[in-house]
């Protein structure tokens, strides 16, 4: 019984110390917030109010990858597993380039490395160039990459390329159309046939848009402010000016042009004609 009382006392004592520590930490945080001018309450009286809000220094970093053109295809420069230097320009090629971002260690990547041992049997559209990109030598072991790469495979070790192409993780694939110099497809896959399917689909989509669309912004591969400006020009050319009702759909019917059903039982011709958004 005495032992139990001692144990309980010790536990209570420890809990008290813990609570005291938390309260002190909380007080430090509140004090720091008040010093920055974003605190709650007035622990310091009117003094902090008299001093006015304290400026908080904000440093703007470089634009994040997502703020850059989302379809641009930058050159990839790095080293080969043998220590040579290599740079490719997917956007400047006349044909499609498939960039395969792999690592030497990931289990899923192992299947792709094996697939690339037989480049003639990959099933990619004729003329498609395959470039494998691993992270740089500071994050990958070149000898391990060498052991996995087929001799005729182009492998570039470049961490910068992973940043440029906003690669979330390996494996990841990006298809670049060399004619327009822009990315036309990207994604993940578990097996290379899935990638081949993506390549064929993306290439067909790109051809279809290029051949049939009247939307020059898309066909020209524009992005960002240039794309918006081009869209504005096309709308104006079509007679759609700012404030045009078609720019402000009030329902899905306004967008898709569905014909409304007259539920009153009246003549079908009395239904409101569908209006398609410009």
């Amino acid at each position, binding site marked *: 019984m005495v032992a139990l009382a001692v144990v309980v006392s010790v536990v209570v004592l420890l809990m008290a110390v813990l609570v005291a520590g938390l309260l002190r930490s909380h007080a430090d945080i509140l004090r720091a917030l008040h010093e920055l001018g974003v605190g709650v309450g007035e622990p310091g009286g009117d003094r902090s109010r008299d001093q006015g809000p304290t400026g908080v220094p904000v440093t703007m970093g470089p634009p994040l990858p997502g703020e850059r053109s989302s379809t641009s295809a930058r*050159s990839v420069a790095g080293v*080969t597993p043998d220590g*040579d230097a290599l*740079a490719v*320009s997917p956007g400047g090629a006349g044909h499609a380039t498939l960039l395969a971002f792999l690592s030497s260690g990931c289990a899923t990547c192992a299947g792709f490395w094996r697939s690339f041992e037989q480049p003639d049997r990959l099933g990619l559209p004729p003329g498609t160039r395959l470039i494998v990109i691993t992270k740089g030598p500071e994050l990958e072991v070149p000898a391990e990459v060498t052991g996995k790469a087929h001799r005729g495979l182009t492998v570039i070790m470049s961490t910068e390329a992973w940043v440029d192409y906003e690669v979330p993780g390996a494996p990841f694939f990006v298809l670049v159309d060399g004619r327009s110099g822009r990315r036309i497809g990207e994604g993940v896959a578990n097996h290379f046939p899935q990638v081949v399917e993506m390549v064929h689909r993306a290439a067909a989509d790109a051809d279809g848009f290029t051949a049939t669309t009247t939307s020059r912004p898309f066909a020209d591969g524009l992005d960002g402010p240039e794309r918006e400006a081009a869209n504005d020009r096309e709308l104006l050319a079509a007679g759609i000016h700012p404030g045009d009702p078609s720019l402000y759909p009030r329902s899905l019917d306004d967008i898709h042009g569905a014909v409304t059903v007259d539920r009153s039982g009246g003549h079908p011709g009395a239904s409101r004609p569908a209006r398609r958004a410009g």
Partner: protein
Amino acid sequence: MATLRAHGIEAQLPAGFEGRIFTRASSDGAVPYPVAQFASFPLPVQVGDFGGGAVNLLGNSDIFTVLFEYGPESVGRHLFARQGMPRALGSSDFRPYALRRGLPGQSGTQWFFTEGGRPFTLYVVLGSHLGRDALVPKVNQLLARVAVVPAGQSEAPPGPPSDATGGLPWN
């Protein structure tokens, strides 16, 4: 702008250019020396030192450039008397018959020189001799951004020399 750096050679590639700086595997005890290749079109995986397998792919607006290093025994020889890489080529430096592989319509030039105590040859092929006035400035834009680490040094190469004098083109 992509930057290539290996084997004591550094190049900042103009937009649209590809390149590689490499050494061949040693064979028969020979010491391999660096080769740098730059092209305005996709470089094939297997390319000969002087463009075999690549120059046949040149379009009319394309450029292929090789910087090929020789062994130190070549330093001081008359062929490599020119000091510094030529970085301001002229249209008149290019001739259709100066090609290692004569392909119709193309034009080339070759220079031997020593830079930083390292003997090199520079070989440039234009896709179109008739279009050389438009292509040569692109070549010069590339050459202006190629630097060589002096022999015996391992740090980053210095900037390109402002004036390279002496020597004559091979062709």
